[in-house]
């Protein structure tokens, strides 16, 4: 049985761990609020962008000169996966979930005989996928140490993707990230970026609108600048959702850790008291039997 001193040491160490996890939970809660506000602030732009894109896309998609970013290049051989994760761990299964989805996807695609290329945003995803798929990496981006991610950062990633598209480095591009459903639920999601999915439901209504709208300059020119922008906004949204999800996941994880630490302290304290009592009893018996022997 562990000595009293050992038990005391363990109780103290679990107590300080609990302090840390509790503090991390508080910090995550504060950051979550900020991240959520940022994600919500970005929503109106993305929504309006989608509306414009839907009306424009319906007009241009059928024409033979439609840009590659909208309709793809017809092939389906090389896939680029953009995987968004956090830069830090200690957030429960947050990073692993995305990593696992990406891993399954890569395996499935390669089993079909397709080539996969990887671009990761966030350090954790990079280190998770590097173990198995190091040869597929083409780039990794990290915003570690940054207080908040600006739109310009997401745009830089989008520019990288656009350049790769122009070089013909891939045919299809998808985004894998944690969608923020609520504080305790994040859903690992795959979203196609190129060719851009055009909302089907909007199509009949936009036919009427498209005929109505004037474009200045031409539809093609507007689309040529609108599409990279849309790519950037999709990536930005994924990064923001992932950031909010990360804080939510960390909060839940740290809450659990704090609770577990509390339980452990209770168990250890009980054990400590029992041992102490046993020691006293043993000493008493020794004294009494010593006195009787005299």
């Amino acid at each position, binding site marked *: 049985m562990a000595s009293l001193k050992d038990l005391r040491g363990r109780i103290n160490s679990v107590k300080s761990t609990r302090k840390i996890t509790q503090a991390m939970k508080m910090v995550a809660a504060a950051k979550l609020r900020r991240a959520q506000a*940022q994600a919500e*602030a*970005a929503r*109106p*732009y*993305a929504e*309006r*962008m989608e*509306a*414009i894109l839907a*009306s*424009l896309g319906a007009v241009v998609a059928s024409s033979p000169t439609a840009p590659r970013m909208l309709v793809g290049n017809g092939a389906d051989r090389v896939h680029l996966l953009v995987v968004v994760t956090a830069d830090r761990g200690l957030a429960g299964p947050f990073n692993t979930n995305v990593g696992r989805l990406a891993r399954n996807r890569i395996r499935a695609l390669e089993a079909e005989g397709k080539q996969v290329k990887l671009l990761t945003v966030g350090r954790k995803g990079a280190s998770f996928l590097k173990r198995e798929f190091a040869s597929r990496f083409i780039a990794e981006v990290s915003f570690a140490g940054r207080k908040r991610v*600006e*739109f310009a950062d*997401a745009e830089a990633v989008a520019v990288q993707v656009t350049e790769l598209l*122009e070089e013909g480095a891939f045919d299809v591009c998808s985004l894998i990230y944690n969608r923020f459903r609520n504080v305790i639920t994040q859903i690992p999601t795959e979203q196609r970026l190129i060719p851009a999915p055009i909302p089907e439901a909007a199509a009949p209504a936009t036919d009427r*609108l498209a005929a*109505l*709208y*004037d*474009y*200045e*300059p031409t539809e093609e*020119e*507007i689309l*040529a*600048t*609108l599409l990279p*922008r849309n790519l*950037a*906004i999709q990536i*930005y949204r994924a990064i923001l959702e992932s950031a909010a999800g990360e804080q939510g996941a960390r909060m839940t994880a740290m809450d659990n850790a704090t609770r577990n630490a509390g339980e452990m302290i209770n168990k250890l304290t009980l054990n400590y008291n029992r041992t102490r009592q046993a020691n006293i009893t043993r000493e008493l018996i020794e004294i009494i039997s010593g006195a009787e022997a005299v």
Partner: protein
Amino acid sequence: MATFQFELVSPEKLLLSRQVEMATIPAAEGEMGVLPGHAPMIVALRGGIIRVRENGAETETLFVGGGFAEVSPERVTVLADEATPLASLSRAASERRLAEAEAALREVQTSDPEAKRDAALARVLAMRTAVEAAQAA
């Protein structure tokens, strides 16, 4: 006077959303004043100043660094790449960004795609507008 719904959004937030009488937006092919009942249009924007009129007076002036606007008879939605109210536009910051944009333009090769060259030039012009606006403010 008749009004229409004017919305200005940047990727980072919704800056304005209210009923206004008139808005002047820097369309790619020239400044464009929009009154209620304007014909539906989708226009590209260059870097410039957006002016909003309410109750017969100019109430808001903002710098935008390019983007798009969707105009319909009862609403105007501006999707700006970036938008800053003139009052909070810092002159030093704009000058620094102008210098950066000019440096980027010098880097551009004639062999680069035309779209890229245009984008670099557009950026310099937008930043120049920002510096001028910051000086005037």
